């Protein structure tokens, strides 16, 4: 209700067409419309994100790069000091595959339980996200698709950061 009201209010007063192409209508045509088309375009993609990223080979490679980045990252590697990295890679692959529409089942614990004792803070969570971005890039996943996967993972922030 409120957003509709704002939209109506705002473009009524904003786009009083004094000339055929005033600043406002140009702005709407050039800046507002293309992203909307973009959003519509990505919504009717028929391939799953899992397939678009390149399936099991690419995702396993991304997870391997991610694990390497994390271990090399002084901001967060102490969190993984006692971790079983083989298990970490396998569970992560299952989770990303499952989330992105691939044929996998995630067999790990839920995010809150598995991170409870690690006391992850905001900076550490973001460092992890950054290492994942870099890992996906190293595996050849385009940035646009990296963000689509990240969009599925981002809400987990509330379960993982527990300070």
């Amino acid at each position, binding site marked *: 209700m409120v957003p509709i009201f704002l939209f109506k209010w705002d473009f009524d007063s904003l786009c009083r067409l004094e000339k055929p192409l005033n600043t406002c209508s140009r702005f709407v045509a050039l800046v507002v419309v293309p992203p909307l088309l973009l959003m519509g375009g990505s919504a009717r993609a028929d391939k799953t994100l899992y397939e678009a990223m390149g399936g099991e080979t690419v995702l396993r490679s991304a997870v391997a790069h991610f694990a390497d980045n994390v271990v090399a990252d002084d901001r967060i590697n102490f969190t993984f000091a006692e971790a079983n990295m083989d298990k970490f890679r396998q569970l992560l692959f299952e989770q990303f595959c499952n989330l992105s529409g691939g044929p996998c089942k995630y067999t790990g614990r839920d995010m809150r339980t598995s991170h409870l004792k690690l006391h992850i803070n905001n900076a550490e969570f973001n460092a992890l996200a950054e290492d994942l*971005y870099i890992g996906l890039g190293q595996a050849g996943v385009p940035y646009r698709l990296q963000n689509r996967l990240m969009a599925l993972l981002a809400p987990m922030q509330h379960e993982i950061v527990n300070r």
Partner: protein
Amino acid sequence: MTSLLAITAFVRPAVRLQRLPVELVVFVLCNVLCVHAAHAQIAPYESVLAPDSGKLPLTAGFNDVDGAGGAGLVPWALITGYGTADSWGANAHYTAVQLRDFRLRSYGVAVGALDRIELSATRDVFDVTGTALNGLSVAQHIYGLKVRVYGDAVYDQDSWAPQTAVGVEYKKNSGISNSAAVGLAGLVSPTQLGALSDSGTDWYVSATKVYLAQSLLVNATLRYTKANEFGLLGFGGDRSDSRSVEFETTIAYILTRKFAVGAEYRKKPHNLGIDNERAAWDAFAAWTPSRNISIVGAYVSLGSILAPVTKQSRDQNGAYLSLQVGF
């Protein structure tokens, strides 16, 4: 700490009373530091006093012409600086905008704390570089406060709700200087051009959302203001002396983790009969090579400025370049 308190016990009571508040602050700060330092083996970023530079690149935003965290013309709901909710961050910026007949320089500092509160102090200097008024200059100070009210623009991908913040900007015009003595003798204040005040307060509410799956950042701002040309020509005027609600927006497409392009639109009120004030807009590219540095380049239009006085009614378009350093 104990020794500090012990010393104060031996000082004469009157002096001790004067000193107490300062030491109370020191005491509280030290406690925060010490208590957090005790857990230092768990993680390196424990104290809220230690900057964590923990946000993702680009997510600290930039500084707009009023000094607030945002893009070039429009404040975002994001809190400036790279400090997360556990910490704080700060930055300094210098922005230069060369228009056809004017030049705007903006420089200032901003602090963001706990991903909740943002404070900024900025100075805008606006020089006339063309037309009959060449040589005139006007400046203003802007002090800003922004508070994040709700949400997280990046994490809340499972919700429609944007990150929302409210802000206030107190602007004080420093007057007009006429170094070249261009024939408008005695012109020292925008109130002589019709503005009713040389200071004013803007209120705004900003809503920012990152549509991560689409790599888009969308911001909408409503500003309650009576500033003429951002306050550079004073506040209120012969046409209106009441605040109006003006719409501003930024839309950005995030191309890489460190690079984005976008456009902005900022409606401005039209209070001065002597200035056919129009909306401002820009198209920008922003690059954050590291969390310590951001560069924004833009093509910007501020619309017609003081056309009846300068006898130059063309739109004031030009180049915008902004550098931000911080943590």
